[in-house]
């Protein structure tokens, strides 16, 4: 399997603030990747580095084997929708499609027009008078119709109402099914990602905390609860991610390779939501205790 995005020690600093640090990942091709984390964690920075809008302070990043933004060939491979889905307010929907055709070699006009028609957008309407959901769909159309190999979407559903969000994800998944593009989708809302993502990257406070296939991650994490027990008494291959105790009961979210067979534990399923929240909590606690943090993966 080829690598969609490969980084090595990637870091970006704005002034005195590090937006991204020690980022070393190898995101495989052909996946729908969820890039999750709280606001300000570095998701936008990582995507902007991948598309060549900003340059790294340290380290390297390659996207589909090439340097981001290096020449028309590389630019054709990557489709990008920025946060707030910028469009030209004074240009009409049809003008935007024309722009796509003028600026992209592989522009698929039929696909673009079919998509606009399916979405019910009026080609003559100025983009400035579209609703947020419609603008997001227009921006996604522009990104998809240039027939890239990878789509990078920065919080595309953040400002949308639930119906618009659902429609956006439906369109996106349909495009993935039809054209087989890889997608990297960043969000601080996890609920939507759970149904569409098969690969996960969790970013908290400018560092990657966990990174892997969703199926593998969910299989390797368990929530166990039972009688009050000290974490040190757990088997050595159980890595504690999150713990909570009452006077009688302990509940742990652990990462372990095999199934939990100890009958003393009640095992409940872990959702992606639980997993991400647990890692976010762990990150915060660790950063508070020890500022220098290694990669957890």
């Amino acid at each position: 399997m080829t690598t969609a995005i490969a980084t090595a020690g990637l870091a970006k600093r704005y002034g005195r603030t590090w937006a991204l640090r020690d980022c070393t990942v190898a995101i495989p091709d052909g996946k729908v990747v969820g890039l999750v984390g709280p606001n300000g964690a570095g998701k936008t920075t990582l995507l902007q580095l991948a598309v060549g809008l900003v340059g790294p302070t340290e380290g390297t990043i390659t996207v589909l084997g090439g340097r981001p933004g290096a020449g028309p060939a590389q630019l054709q491979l990557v489709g990008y929708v920025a946060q707030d889905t910028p469009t030209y307010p004074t240009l009409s929907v049809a003008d935007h499609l024309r722009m796509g055709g003028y600026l992209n070699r592989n522009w698929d006009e039929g696909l673009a027009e079919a998509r606009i028609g399916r979405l019910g957008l009026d080609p003559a309407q100025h983009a400035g008078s579209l609703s947020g959901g419609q603008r997001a769909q227009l921006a996604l159309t522009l990104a998809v119709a240039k027939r890239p190999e990878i789509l990078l979407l920065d919080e595309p559903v953040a400002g949308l109402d639930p119906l618009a969000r659902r429609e956006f994800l439906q369109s996106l998944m349909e495009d993935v099914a039809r054209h087989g593009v890889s997608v990297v989708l960043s969000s601080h809302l996890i609920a939507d990602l759970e149904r569409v993502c098969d690969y996960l990257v969790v970013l908290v406070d400018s560092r990657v905390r966990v990174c892997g296939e969703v199926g593998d991650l969910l299989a390797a994490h368990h929530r166990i609860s039972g009688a009050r027990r000290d974490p040190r008494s757990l088997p050595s291959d159980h890595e504690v991610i999150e713990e909570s105790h009452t006077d009688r009961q302990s509940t742990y979210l652990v990462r372990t390779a095999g199934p939990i067979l100890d009958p003393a534990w009640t095992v409940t399923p872990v959702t992606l939501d639980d997993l991400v929240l647990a890692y976010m909590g762990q990150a915060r606690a660790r950063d508070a205790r020890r500022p220098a943090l290694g990669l957890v993966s």
Partner: protein
Amino acid sequence: MIKFAWLQFRVQAAVAAGGLVVVAVVLAATGPNLVHLYDTTVAPCAARHDCSAATTALTGTDGPVQVVSDFLVLLIPLLIGMFWGAPLVAREFETGTFRLAWTQGVTRTRWLAVKLGLGAAVGMAATGLLSLMVTWWSSPLDRVRGNLFDPLEFGVRGLVPIGYAAFAFALGLCAGMVVRRTLPAMLAVLVGFFTVREVVTKWVRPNLIAPLHTKLAVTAGSLVGFDETPSGMTVVATTRGILPNSWVYSNQVVDRAGHAPTQAFLNRACPFLTTGQANFQACTVHLAARYHELVTYQPASRYWPLQWGELAIFVALAAALAAGCVWWIRRPVS
């Protein structure tokens, strides 16, 4: 890319075209009348030596149109810089659309080069057309006034407005790129445009081509007064009206060796110096015996070389700014 640049530019181009049409209509309606007036009243008057009435009548015709047309040629290059140049990149930063434009299938460098080229070309063409029309329309008046080298006049005729437009556009573009905000960039164009023009007008234009010198006899009409200097009094000669249609830099009263009249000489030759009663007739005879007027000037034939020279300077400035901008945009910054 050129088609996309046109797509974004079409409104501005339409406004420019519309404006030019309006100007053309007004000038075409009033221009022939001026030519007719000149041919019938001013041309024959030279033989009769009583031109003042005819010239006054001619220069007073269509006063508002004169003012507005000169004003337009003065201002259009600045407006091109402020409203076409400054927002070109700055607006994209302000609205975030650069994140859309720079992630399509063309590099930033190409994007900027094409938009820059289109804006500059249309701006220069529009300004050139405007200047052409106004220069043609004003030619009877300019012939009568003979003041084409006048600092303000020189800048609103002929070729130089084209250079100003290119420069203002490039200045606005660069300011917008660096500052990333339209309004401050527009302000920078305003300040930069007038500053550079002032500098060129005062210090560069006079030195572009070495001026000529000529000697004239001292006449009473050309002596205008006395001036107090650290080394004593000197006599002052006028620069106006002595060489028609020329640009007179200075008119000095000097002797064959190049020295100005001494204080002692002036006290003897022009005794009213101390009494304050001006009577240059007596003065003149004494001065003319030893002194002549040394005039430093550019003849009328130097008009177009100076126009081309200044055009070249501003186009070179614009090109340097443009090259700098295209180089700057390669830096990957957010």
